[in-house]
């Protein structure tokens, strides 16, 4: 019986190739409930003559097996390295692409406004002078137009086509086609006749916003834009509102944020000018509202410390792949 156990256990040991299976083998024979241990435990109940023989055979088998175990264990432990992986090698991923950083910023801002009940609309990039300027209380031959250096289109039989200088013309178009209450933002590309450098580009994006209703107040404007600043720049961000001038609002507002100890203007806003309401057929005695506009490039430049606005349209993958 002992001989049988000896052959069985040693044969099994030959096929043991890992530390795990060696351990299983040890438990099977030498463990507390192991086959050899059970025999040793049962010796007491055997007749005297058998007891001595089996006792000595069992004990010598235990010595043999323990010796074998100790001998084989380090070899197997060394083998373990062959079995393992180099966890410092780069992992495998399903390749996904990326959004352009401006798309990401526009989405982030859009979501902030969606949460406040705004809907999103887009508009054409070519526009009529009437919508880009006249309906926004920016008359022809008025110095206010100097704020928007304009790229004009050269079209047969028309001289009033331009590339929109801001997303504001959509204010007028939306009001012409709908009734209050209105809460909308309009992201899109805009164009300016401007020499380009690290902070100026002739081609950029803007997010316009418009709220029209009954009893919309200056406090609503402040609250809404303050909320935006907190969402985009963090809840403890310091925000400053100061007086500024845009012909299509009155009073006019500039919102700046505290950025590393400096006030940086990130948004122009104001209460919708009554002339804008009159131009689209709204009664300014019934409705009030506010409008605002901001530049996602500027926000991205601040946030990621981007040194040159022209990076956004360079389409350099070394730039885009970082976002």
């Amino acid at each position, binding site marked *: 019986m002992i001989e049988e156990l000896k052959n069985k256990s040693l044969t099994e040991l030959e096929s043991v190739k890992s530390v795990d299976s060696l351990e299983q083998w040890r438990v099977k024979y030498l463990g507390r409930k192991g086959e050899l241990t059970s025999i040793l435990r049962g010796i007491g109940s055997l007749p005297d003559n058998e007891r001595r023989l089996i006792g000595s055979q069992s004990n010598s088998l235990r010595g043999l097996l323990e010796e074998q175990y100790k001998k084989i264990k380090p070899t197997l432990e060394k083998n373990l390295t062959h079995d393992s992986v180099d966890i410092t090698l780069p992992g495998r991923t*399903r390749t996904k692409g990326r959004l*352009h950083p401006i*798309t990401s910023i526009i989405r982030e801002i859009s979501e902030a406004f969606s949460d406040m009940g705004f809907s999103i609309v887009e508009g054409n990039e*070519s526009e009529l002078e009437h919508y880009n300027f006249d309906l926004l209380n920016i008359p022809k*031959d008025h110095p206010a137009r100097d704020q928007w250096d304009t790229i004009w289109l050269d079209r047969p039989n028309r001289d009033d*086509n331009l590339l929109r200088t801001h997303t504001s013309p959509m204010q007028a178009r939306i009001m012409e086609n709908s009734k209050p209450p209105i*809460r909308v933002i309009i992201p899109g590309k805009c164009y300016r006749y401007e020499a380009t450098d690290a902070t100026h580009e002739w081609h950029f994006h803007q997010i316009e916003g418009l709220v029209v209703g009954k009893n919309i107040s200056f406090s609503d404007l402040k609250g809404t834009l303050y909320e935006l600043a907190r969402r985009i720049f963090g809840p403890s961000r310091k925000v*400053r509102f100061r007086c500024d001038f845009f012909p299509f609002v*009155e*009073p006019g507002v500039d919102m700046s944020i505290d950025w590393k100890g400096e006030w940086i203007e990130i948004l122009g806003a104001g209460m919708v000018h009554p002339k804008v309401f009159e131009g689209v057929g709204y009664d300014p005695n019934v409705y009030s509202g506010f409008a605002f506009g901001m530049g996602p490039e500027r926000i991205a430049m601040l946030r990621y410390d981007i040194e040159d606005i022209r990076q956004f349209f360079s389409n350099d993958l070394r730039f885009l792949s970082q976002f």
Partner: protein
Amino acid sequence: MKIPLSWLKDYVKFDLSLDEVAHALTMSGNEVENIRSIGNIDKVLVAKVIEINPHPNADKLQLVVVDNGTSKLEVVCGANNLFIGQKVALASIGAKLFNPHSEDSEEVFTLKKSKIRGVVSEGMICSEKELGIGLDHTGILNLDSNTVVGTKIEDIIGDSILEFSLTPNRSDCLGIIGIAREVSAILDAKLKLPETNYISQKQKVNSAISVNIEATDLCDRYMGSIITDVSIKPSPKWLQDRLTAIGERPINNIVDITNYIMFETGQPLHAFDYEKIKNKKIVVRRAKNKEKIISIDNTVRELNSNILVISDSEKSIGIAGVMGGKNSEITSKTNSIFLEAATFDSSNNRKTSKQLNLKSEANLRFEKGLNPQLAEFAIKRAIRMILEICGGESYSGLIDEPKEKIISKKIISVDKNYLSNILGLKLDDFIIENTLTKLGFEVVDNNEKWDITVPYWREDVNIPEDIVEEIARVVGYDIFPSKTISDNLPIWSPTEDLDLKRKITDYLVESGMQEIISYSATNMESESRMDFPKDYPSPVFIRNPISNDFNIMRRSLRESILNCISYNVRSWKDPIAIFELGRIFLETNDDLPKEKIMINGAFAGPRNAIHWERKSNDLFDFFDAKGSVEYVLKKLRIPMKFSKFSDDPTFISGRCAKILSGKNLDIEIGVLGQISNKIISKFGSNIPDIFMFEIDFESLLNIYIDADKYNFYSRFSRHQNSQRDISLIVDDFQEVQEIIDIVNKHNIVSRSEITDIYTGGDIVDGKKVITVRIEYQSFDKTLKASEISIIEKKILLDLKKFIGADLRS
């Protein structure tokens, strides 16, 4: 607009620090962009000249002994305006001074102890240029004789220049008094206006000159006066210093005073040499076409009938409100002057300046719109100052045309409730009334409302909303509460176009592509690389392009995508998989160009980023582009079909397909294929093969709106399925879709996929082997092998019959 602090303090006194005042002005709408400090130079003291001795080694230099209050020093000086007892600015060793010989007016040097022609100079007597307070370097700065020796120079000449970025509505702030009035309102300080009274000894001015406004629509008011026997000289130093500090070059006393008054009040003035006005007649008229004038900047200007001029009986002597004429300018020989203060039409003035491409400080003010009442204040103030500084005698009275003026008084009624509703806060009546009064408004409290008279200089204030801003900006926007909008929410309406855009963008990103945004404009030469068909719509031209690189709007995104690839191949060795969703512009007969949204994407270069395991020589091909299109359309639940075509020269024929969709799969929504080598070569060398797709957003949107987006779920059988492969020998040109269609027609076929395509070896030329794995499954039961074999035989018969396929044994 630049304002020296010392000048501002002539009109308003305040104790707050300059930074605090600048901040308050910024918050209320007049942004102080910068505060520049001048004359605050360390190690420069007031000293007195005690001895002047010749330099032993140089004729043009002198050895000057000066007393700086604590010691006597010897310095070398080359100036020729030195005299004994003179008070001068003495820089000691280590002082940082401005380099008078540098083109860069900001360049600073540190004074070192040095020998000049063998004599040690223990310091330097400074010119105003070296101190950074003026441009004069012809001699040293001559300080007032009362100046106390030993005083730090910054206490004598130190000043701060506030640089404003003004908004175009505030023409009144283009005069220093305007800013002073703002300060007085914000800080609740007293405003002190300058004196305007003067004594005139001579007869009525209209006996010596006549003024006729012909162009009455372009000139609201024309005021004038004559001052005789003036002596034309350089202005006194204080006046020159003030003009220099704001960047103006002093000319002579008369011209300097007209400029000074313009900066003080905001009203431009002009002085003509009275003797040169023919027949003592002034006519304000439109110029004749092609009439010429030489302006005081010595430039010949050709005029036209849209331009307003000031003329005498024969010729024009000035371009109204823009620039005077050379023929009547003040010279050292001038004895009598005719002084003009007028109100010209703002938009005409602006057009003139644009037409002549001539901007001036006068035009900057006129184009913003000035009130006729300002002219009177300014001309009286100027006459007083001319008499004081230039001597002479003034005629009595003033020219004031037209005789009948419409001087309107603006009264705005503001409802008290309206004010607190729109601001979201009720302000104390006293605060409102005091704020407006300080700004020059007259306020009458009429119970429920205020009747507010607008001061003449506030052309920008016309409606109650303007009054709201006046109050809010001065008390400060900070005090108004921040609330959430309490009005009703608008009713939701669908925006399927934006939903679709967002989905397409997301799905393309999911399929491994990088979004790009390119310039929307290009030029003909660059665009011609694309080989558009002859009947392609014309481009939209830009009238005033920012550069010739961008003088037409793009008609396709293809060029943008190819530009991006050719730009990146040099520096980017990883896969290039890019897409753009953007607008193109086509000429039409409509009010606006046709704008189309297109989606273009492309793959080029290695398929895998550099990775220890993946093959780096595996390149993108046609099926990467097709795969992205399939992924997007599948996710959108839009049916699709690809069909071969060959009439688009952008692509290699035989390697491109039309993308069809719609219920009947007959609507073309785009194309895809491999870009022709001819085109690629025009974008540079070493560009890998490019595989591009292009989808017309509008066509896709129409299908998307109509598509049955939710009817895609199908129940699946829970019975055992079986898979069997068949290998078919078919013609080389056989499209696999046809095989799949034939296989799928059979009723217990639940799925079929191509698992292998094989040519060569024992396969004869012109043939290939296609292996199809067919999955059989029934909804009713587990199929027996014999049942599957029956169907399999039928499939093989059909394949033989329709496409001549043989089973490979």
